[in-house]
């Protein structure tokens, strides 16, 4: 009589450590090398019935302090005019992304200034709730 327990098949032992090391290296590489879309410092306004965004426009972010931020950089009137001039040769379209808590008057005043600079088509960027 064979009283010995049947021998188990040998466990397949794969060492995962090198794989994990590589994945970590890749993760760190992408974290350092990749640029994420810069986060706006504002709390965007919300509005229903808004349409899809087009990408070819110059976006001016208006912060709560009434500062103008274009592509992550705070700019003044002069720099804005230069940018607008440059933008005219491209799409010529301008969008404003205001902080929802900003005084509405300041938004109207920027729109006015854009109008004076000959920008007729201005859109507002909001988030759909």
């Amino acid at each position, binding site marked *: 009589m064979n009283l010995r327990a049947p021998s188990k098949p040998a466990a397949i032992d794969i060492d995962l450590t090198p794989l994990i090391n590589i994945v970590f290296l890749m993760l760190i590489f992408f974290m350092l090398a990749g640029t994420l879309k810069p986060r706006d410092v504002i709390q965007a306004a919300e509005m229903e019935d808004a349409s899809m965004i087009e990408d070819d426009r110059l976006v001016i972010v208006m912060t709560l302090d009434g500062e103008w931020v274009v592509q992550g950089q705070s700019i003044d009137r002069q720099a804005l005019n230069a940018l607008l001039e440059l933008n005219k040769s491209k799409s010529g379209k301008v969008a404003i992304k205001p902080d*929802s808590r900003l*005084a*509405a008057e300041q938004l*109207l005043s920027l729109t006015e200034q854009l109008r004076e600079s000959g920008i007729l088509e201005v859109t*507002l960027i*909001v988030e759909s709730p």
Partner: protein
Amino acid sequence: MSLTPLIDVVFILLLFFMLASNFSQERTVSWNSSAESRKQAEGLPLESTRIYLQAAGQHLLDGKAMAQSELLAELAARHAANSLHLAIVSVSEEVDVQTLLDLLARIKRTGVEKVVMEASGNP
């Protein structure tokens, strides 16, 4: 074979992408508020009225203070009676962007075709 290290990594990746991605959807609305578009609009033979927006929920229409629901009902009634096609929203200093946008969206829903904005002094 221990799966723990693999799961650790997957969790780290998950956490990274959760923190790094942005799911909020951006939309656009057209925005014509300037003096010139107002002049154009006022030059048109449109029946118009001016609404003073003083703060959230405080409006003046024809010198009468109204809550938002009253205001919207009044605008809808005038629009239905064919005596209102253009609303001019006069915005005071205290009003923030969100308040203004909320009001605009609701006015548009009453059927009024055109809404323009201006910065107000005191009414």
